[in-house]
């Protein structure tokens, strides 16, 4: 019997596609934000709210990943943003190959800001590089403030923690400070904003964060 050294990443095929996507974004000057979080955390409503803000400011578009239906892309289009649905079937995450496949679609070709709403899941989507500039983790108040410690991989890979549904704080034991502390215990670099996509409270902080990302590229 002989043992042969190999050194190969198992997800390297995805990494190759991600590098191609990243090159395309760089050529076009597109800033791509990969939004991750549980189903129901408010990823779609965050994109809907952002749609209104982008109007007249920055050419923007959205991609929405789900296992089935085009409900989210329809909602985002109704909010005024060009959007495409990526239906993943049995897969629990978006991958870079799926992003590459839609980059030349008229809805996204000219976007300076591309919001990618990943499939609702706190585990798998974090493992896949989509060629994005930044990952954003959305955590909502009803989920509980300890989730960052339970699912550290997602929060460690994110640049920003968005705490959504703060209009529900009074109904729960959720503490924004505790959530941020839990998140920073696993990801000390993390920026955080607390907001409500329903009432609009705190959204200006999110928009400011996007403006800073756009200014960097």
């Amino acid at each position: 019997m002989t043992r042969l050294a190999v050194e190969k990443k198992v997800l390297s095929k995805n990494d190759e596609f991600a590098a191609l996507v990243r090159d395309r974004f760089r050529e076009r000057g597109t800033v791509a934000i990969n939004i991750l979080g549980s189903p129901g955390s408010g990823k779609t409503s965050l994109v809907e709210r952002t749609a209104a803000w982008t109007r007249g400011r920055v050419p923007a578009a959205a991609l929405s990943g789900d296992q089935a239906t085009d409900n989210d892309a329809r909602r985002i289009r109704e909010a005024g943003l060009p959007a495409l649905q990526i239906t993943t079937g049995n897969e629990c995450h978006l991958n870079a190959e799926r992003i590459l496949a839609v980059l030349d679609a008229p809805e996204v070709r000219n976007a300076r800001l591309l919001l990618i709403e990943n499939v609702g899941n706190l585990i798998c989507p974090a493992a896949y590089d989509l060629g994005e500039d930044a990952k954003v983790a959305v955590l909502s108040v009803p989920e509980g403030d300890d989730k960052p410690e339970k699912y550290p991989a997602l929060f460690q890979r994110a640049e920003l923690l968005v705490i959504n549904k703060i209009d529900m704080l009074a109904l729960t034991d959720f503490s924004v400070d505790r959530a941020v502390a839990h998140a920073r215990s696993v990801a000390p670099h993390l920026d955080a904003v607390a907001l409500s996509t329903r009432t609009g409270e705190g959204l200006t902080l999110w928009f400011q964060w996007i403006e800073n990302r756009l200014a960097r590229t």
Partner: protein
Amino acid sequence: MHELGVASALYEWALSQSRQVEPRRLLSIELEQDSLSGLNADSVDFGFRALATGTEVEGVRLEWHEVSPTYVCPRCSETSTSSAAPQGCLHCGGAVPRLARTDSLRVLSIEVE
């Protein structure tokens, strides 16, 4: 749930390796998984075995090692491994190291007959 995708990538790679080492037989694949990979090794094993049944890689064993994740300092680019998120860079002390973009599952070696 993405274990099946990983098992499938591993299966395709195993097939290509099996053909490369012919006439010798591929016996096992040694894998290194970081503790933040979010992968369940048993599920990958199950998916791999299911895909391999009836093919030339049927019976190939997956051998797992778990390691701490790798972090990269955004300032000095030095890498380090740590089981807990580092609060500062051990090399330059100037920035908080970030989780390396990808390397959560790697093939280290193969064993052939």
